[in-house]
């Protein structure tokens, strides 16, 4: 058990918890969160009352409609090939291309729908920790729409992650074995007795549970045999096990021998204490800081394994620990692009960004939801930042704070027609005038540059800045002030404050 932090806490500590366990908030949200006290605040994050279905997913992914369109798509391919009989090869080729093009367009739109849906959910959810853990699992058990292609499977997987967000790591790993998106992603739908595909067996040990060095090549070969026979029933959209394709002979894994199937192998993995340590360290690095001490990890691992791999009590221990609020933790983490974007919008009290903006900003910064780069998920920390992504962050901050400059005619409207179907998207895309600065920097505050700057520093950094930096901002504000501080000048000041190395940290 780690040493606990005391109950009384500062507003900076409250902001730190809200940043790390969620996606931050605006000053008034931080104030009410702080007022709860440390323990109640942690409990509010962990025990949420927001229903799982509080944000209805895109209509095409729900219930009968989803299955019907899944089947229709299968059918389209079949009908197509049947209809092609009697066509010349060129005609058949063209017909096939047409059909594929249609499915492609539909898939693209659906991918945009779900990327926008989840992003908005993260932005607005009253259960930020659950969303953050859903993102954690999406990164941990990474699959991408680029390969899976069937958006329905990723929406369903997202729901699986959310339901189990703070539940048992072991149960979730068992569920991933039966997850259609993972199966398509790792090509295990074609793993058969005699010639098993090693992909899932290797990744489950290396990336999902044990980590490199805690299993042998032999374990991988043997486990691959146990994982044979699982297949995806495309009509029902479910994974099933075909005993005839399963290698039922004995396997020897981690020194134990038996006629194991996939479920058994995962059971064997979770008997190893490395599984607990692997996940505890990963969660610590995700929420607190990199390279934690062995002692902290060891002590948390013991209770994690004893609780049968329950995430909620583990995170409660971490968020109530003294270590979580030390100097090495607070404002030491480089924001991921998703963290960066959602914090930015929350701080500027923007609740309804357009789909076009949401998705392109993710692409430019290098983290697109439902599209992690590979099965190892995203690289976090310093890997988010290079000269290119840093400049892009500065420019995105410029776009969000200043809008399009208010000159509607100068924007080529044809460029924005292609995205978003509803008029709201178009409205924001064509003429985004920036946040409501009357609220963010009310006029009385604008009279005194140092107060204005201090208020914005709390909004953007949630902690005092070094004197040198604070003074530069005040000097700039003073020189810009003139007779009155216009919204445009406030926007310029905000853009400068956001175009700094410090703003990349949370």
């Amino acid at each position, binding site marked *: 058990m780690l040493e606990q932090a005391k109950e009384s806490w500062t507003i900076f500590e409250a902001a730190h918890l809200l940043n790390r366990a969620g996606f931050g908030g605006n000053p008034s949200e931080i104030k009410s969160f702080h007022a709860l006290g440390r323990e109640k605040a942690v409990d509010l994050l962990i025990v949420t009352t927001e229903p799982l279905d509080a944000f209805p997913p895109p209509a095409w992914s729900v219930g009968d409609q989803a299955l019907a369109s899944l089947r229709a798509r299968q059918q389209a391919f079949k009908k197509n090939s049947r209809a092609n009989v009697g066509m010349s090869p060129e005609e058949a080729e063209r017909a096939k291309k047409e059909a*594929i093009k249609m499915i492609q367009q539909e*898939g693209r739109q659906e991918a945009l729908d779900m990327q926008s849906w989840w992003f908005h959910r993260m932005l607005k959810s009253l259960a930020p920790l659950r969303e953050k853990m859903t993102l954690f699992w999406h990164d941990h058990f990474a699959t991408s729409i680029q390969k899976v292609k069937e958006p329905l499977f990723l929406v369903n997987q997202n729901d699986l992650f959310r339901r189990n967000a703070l539940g048992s790591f072991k149960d979730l790993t068992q569920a991933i074995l039966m997850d259609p998106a993972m199966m398509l*992603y790792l090509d295990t739908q074609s793993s058969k007795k005699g010639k098993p595909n090693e992909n899932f067996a290797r990744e489950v040990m290396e990336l999902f549970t044990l980590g490199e060095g805690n299993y042998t090549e032999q374990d991988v070969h043997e486990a691959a045999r146990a994982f044979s026979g699982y297949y995806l029933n495309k009509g029902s959209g479910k994974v099933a096990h075909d005993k005839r394709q399963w290698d039922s002979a004995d396997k020897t894994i981690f020194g134990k021998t038996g006629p194991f199937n996939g479920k058994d192998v995962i059971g064997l993995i979770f008997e190893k204490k490395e599984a607990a340590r692997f996940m505890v360290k990963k969660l610590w690095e995700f929420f607190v800081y990199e390279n934690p001490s062995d002692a902290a990890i060891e002590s948390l691992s013991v209770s994690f394994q004893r609780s049968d791999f329950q995430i909620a009590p583990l995170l409660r221990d971490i968020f109530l620990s003294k270590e979580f609020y030390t100097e090495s933790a607070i404002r030491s*983490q*480089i924001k991921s692009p998703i963290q960066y974007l959602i914090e930015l919008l929350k701080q500027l009290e923007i609740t309804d960004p357009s789909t076009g903006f949401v998705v392109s900003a993710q692409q430019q910064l290098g983290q697109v939801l439902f599209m992690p780069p590979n099965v190892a998920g995203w690289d976090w920390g310093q890997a988010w930042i290079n000269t*290119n992504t840093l*400049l892009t962050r500065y420019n995105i901050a410029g776009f969000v704070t200043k809008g399009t400059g208010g000159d509607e005619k100068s924007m080529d409207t044809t460029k924005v027609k292609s995205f978003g179907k509803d008029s709201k998207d178009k409205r924001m895309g064509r003429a985004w005038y920036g946040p409501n600065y009357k609220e963010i920097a009310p006029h009385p505050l604008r009279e005194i540059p140092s107060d204005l700057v201090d208020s914005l520093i709390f909004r953007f950094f949630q902690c005092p800045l070094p004197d040198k930096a604070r003074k530069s901002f005040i000097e*700039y504000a003073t020189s810009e002030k003139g007779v009155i501080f216009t919204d445009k000048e406030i926007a310029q000041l905000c853009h400068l404050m956001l175009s700094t190395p410090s703003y990349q940290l949370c």
Partner: protein
Amino acid sequence: MKTRRDFLRSTVLGASATWTVPMFIERTFGQLHEGARDLAIQPTTGKDDTILIVLQLAGGNDGLNTLVPFADDAYQKSRPRIGKKEKEIIKLSDYVGLNAAMPFLGSLFKEGDLGIVQGVGYPNPNRSHFVSTSIWETADTGNHSNTGWLGRYFDNACPGADPTVGISFSKTQPESFGAVKNPGVCLNSPELYRWIHSGGEKDQAEQFFADLNKPNIQVDHDDDEVLEGGSIAMAAGGKVGGITGEGNLAFLERVALDARVSSKTILEIAAKHKTSVRYDGTPLARNLNLVARMIAGGMPTRVYYVSHGGFDTHNQQVNSHDRLLGQLDSGLKSFFADLKQQGNDKRVVLMTFSEFGRRVTENASAGTDHGKASCLFLAGSGIKGGLHGIHPSLTDLSEGDIKHTVDFRSVYGTILSDWLKAPNLKPILGANYPKMSFVG
């Protein structure tokens, strides 16, 4: 062209009565930690030096269907469904031939400007994409190094170089660029590689805005077959190097300075050159086009890095693998034509690499699983064409994989000393490896 030194000098001397935005920025960016300040007081690199292009084939390229040992019975027997027959290849010798998807590389071989190193790998190979990619990029088979082989080249053989000594066209920094001091820069689009801060830059603001509003989801439905290797479609980042004990804030400040310095240079240069050579629309061709523009503009860059993904061909691989090789071939064809037109073709050598090859025997899904040794390409008029190294046996295998006959660090070492003229390999590769003779 402004250097780090100029930036810092203007910071120090830049006490001014009125605050302008650029002034503010220079002051703010100038507040650097000691490490970056030391680095700034150095000369810059020349513009006429040799250049290396590193082209990653991400996902584990099937070397045996790239350089095909068509005449080997063991090859045909192991790959009844996916094997290439003698008539399907571009014959290079009585034993091997190139995959026919690469006619340009075939002609380059005949002209003597394509070297193919056979059987490249390393001892105790690892079959994980991530570990093996790390090993190739760090040139450390123990996978402990926190810096990359190119980053160590920048740090040790290019003292005082501007950050643009290495440019990677990617969103994440390749591990091979990981460096203690100078990790080079990453960029996507030179025109937008800048900070747009005031109202006087309408064009850039608009272009940036247009880009921000153009979602472009790549869901590959090109074929009805599965997109191969989606699970490792993109280059993985990973270790980024950095100064030991350097905090995230110091790291960010360092990158911010590099961005400022390189942004000016790159913008100036990108505006200069337009080519009449046609490139494909693939990401690879687009990036090779950008490299060509940078070279034409006279960047002091010694190493460019581009990536071509999708080689994790576990399933129904024939069409997708041939298509990927075809994209590579076509991209290189345009690139070398462009260089020739510029008159820079003699300065450039291109090397491909991939984290591993694939199993000799095809799997049940008409694909191939992760393997070990593979082949790599070296292209350019500075290269001695032909086959280098010995093709590994297809019957004397290690866990179903061919054994390496050439250590990849020998290839790196030869390039570093004979092409990039690094004076001392010890600090870059840790040891000296047998030199090869493909340069010259």
